[in-house]
């Protein structure tokens, strides 16, 4: 009977119930969106995972591909190509730069791969290797700039045509523009220096062994596995965003707990006499607490469901308005927020329970 009673206590004031559910839903939505954004941002660097190279050779001291510059003379990469376990080494030019997209300055990350002819495949060409004078952009950049296939954009002194638009990538900070290697050399003006060497391994070769062999041979180089190279970007993101996210999640939690607590407390005060009657006719403390907890659980549960659906809807709408709004909802986050919601309900019940404790059952005899 505690649950039906709790439900009816809440539904007795439908307007207040709706507002309270909206308050909890807002808190849950805030927490879920922030977490989903964090997960989405954390997928920055996915391009490095998708490219065929298992190892990335960089100038020693390079911390990550976005915030640290690596300059490697091309001749240093040549011996790597003939090392055991290595199928090919792809010199890579890459840097962030602004370009002119029809009168609008847009920032993107240009990348060019000089893939040896014996390694080139149709898939690689389709995704990463435009012909000279052309570039391949992704759908996010298309929506941001309005550029589409056949349009031209100004990269430094080079005017390049949009060859293809790739499906949307999870890159949030910078969208990748794949450029022909010859064009990139002209745009960057770097001569025989490249940024990285992308190492494609022979089938069955051990990445760690090859990496060790490369650095043993040339201590001026440093080697990352592609996972470590991509993760180095996430590490930067974690250090920058995690404290901010933690504060936002905490604010969401406090707002949710306050809304539930206030609603249940008000409902308890309004029904002081009814709780007094329950105490008078023999309702134990535990029984009454269960009613309060059930009220909090119903409110929090409804708010959680509305908030979760709302978060999903907001993410869908937001990506239409802001192409870089990359979110990723994970089941573990949803479960975590659900647990937080339960905790919210328990904490929110604290004050109402204290209130119930203080109700004098003799109130029942007062007119």
């Amino acid at each position, binding site marked *: 009977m505690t649950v039906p*009673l709790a439900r009816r206590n809440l539904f007795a004031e439908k307007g207040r119930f709706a507002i309270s559910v909206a308050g909890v839903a807002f808190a849950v939505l805030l927490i879920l969106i922030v977490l989903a954004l964090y997960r989405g941002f954390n997928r920055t660097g996915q391009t490095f995972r998708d490219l065929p190279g298992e190892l990335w050779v960089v100038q020693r001291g390079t911390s990550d591909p976005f915030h640290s510059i690596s300059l490697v003379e091309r001749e240093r990469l040549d011996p790597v190509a003939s090392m055991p376990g290595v199928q090919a080494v792809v010199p890579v030019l890459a840097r962030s730069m602004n370009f002119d997209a029809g009168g609008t300055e847009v920032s993107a990350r240009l990348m060019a791969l000089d893939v040896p002819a014996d390694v080139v495949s149709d898939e690689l060409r389709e995704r990463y290797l435009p012909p000279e004078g052309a570039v391949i952009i992704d759908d996010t950049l298309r929506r941001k700039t309005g550029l589409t296939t056949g349009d031209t954009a100004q990269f430094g002194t080079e005017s390049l045509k949009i060859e293809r638009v790739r499906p949307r990538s999870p890159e949030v900070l910078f969208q990748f523009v794949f450029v022909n290697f010859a064009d990139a050399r002209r745009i960057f003006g770097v001569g025989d220096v490249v940024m990285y060497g992308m190492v494609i391994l022979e089938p069955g070769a051990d990445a760690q062994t090859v990496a060790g062999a490369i650095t043993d041979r040339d201590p001026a180089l440093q080697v990352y596995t592609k996972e470590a190279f991509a993760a180095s970007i996430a590490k930067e993101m974690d250090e920058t965003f995690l404290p901010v996210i933690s504060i936002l999640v905490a604010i969401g939690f406090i707002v949710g707990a306050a809304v539930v607590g206030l609603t249940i407390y008000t409902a308890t005060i309004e029904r002081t006499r009814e709780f007094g009657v329950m105490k008078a006719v023999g*309702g134990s*403390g535990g029984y009454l607490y269960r009613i309060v907890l059930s009220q909090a659980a119903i409110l929090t549960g409804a708010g959680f469901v509305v908030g979760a659906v709302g978060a999903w809807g907001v993410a869908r709408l937001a990506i239409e308005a802001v192409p870089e709004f990359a979110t990723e909802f994970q089941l573990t986050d949803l479960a975590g927020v659900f647990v937080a919601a339960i905790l919210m309900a328990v904490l929110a019940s604290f004050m109402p329970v204290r209130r119930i404790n203080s109700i004098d059952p003799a109130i029942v*005899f007062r007119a």
Partner: protein
Amino acid sequence: MNDCEQRHILRATALTKVFGEGESQVRAVDGVDLQVCPGEMLLIMGPSGSGKTTLLTMLGGLLRPTSGTIEVDGVDITALKESRLTPVRRKSVGFIFQSFNLWESLSVQENVELALNMAGVGGRAASGRARTLLEQQGLGRRLQFSSRNLSGGEKQRVSIARALANEPRLLLADEPTANLDSKHGREVMHLLRDLSRSGDRAVIAVSHDQRIREVADRVLWLEDGRIKDIGQLVRDPVCGASVEMDNAIKLEHEGRTYYFCSRGCSWEFQQSPERFKAGAATSSVTA
């Protein structure tokens, strides 16, 4: 030691409740001794502020006395901690209130079921017993009604069914007819009397309602927190009303004294004494 002395349901000894301290101190109940036996309906009357409700609140274990003892169903409740007192209230005492105090968000049946749930009776057993109790109160067709939509009389009958849910031996009624019209008040009054007569149970009612005197086995007059003698009650053989012997209109007839509430009843009796002689009887005495 008489039978009641051995089988009493409630016994209060030197019960005293003092509110406040120093000059503002009030002795709401002052040295009350009381004993209630199975099958008895006790009415406590008195002016406003005389301590009736305070006495009832203490008897129900809702207020601790300043001194004295209360024994309910063989348990001295004055020394019990709140956690031990709650089960006594749940199992041994049923409360009937002036303002009904129903849980208005619940249906009629749920009001009774909730009281059973609190005592650990759930599911079909609770709903079956709730239905039976409510049907006995003539509310079989109102089971699923919202309790807030009932008439005053119906609400009080739900309140009585709820009070009976856990089969308590002691029913405490606070002004049970105060919010009812005369018809429903009379119904409730007779219902309380029947409850005291059926089963191993007693009813204590606090009321200003003179009509309850008719059905009470015993009437106590509480004034300034103390019980006082209010004299013997007798029945008017014409209209059936209970009247105090000392204040009644007296008439000697064939060697017997008859008592009337008014000159009209006395005159009517004199016109046809044979019609009314059987209705004359003493109804109750004081503590």
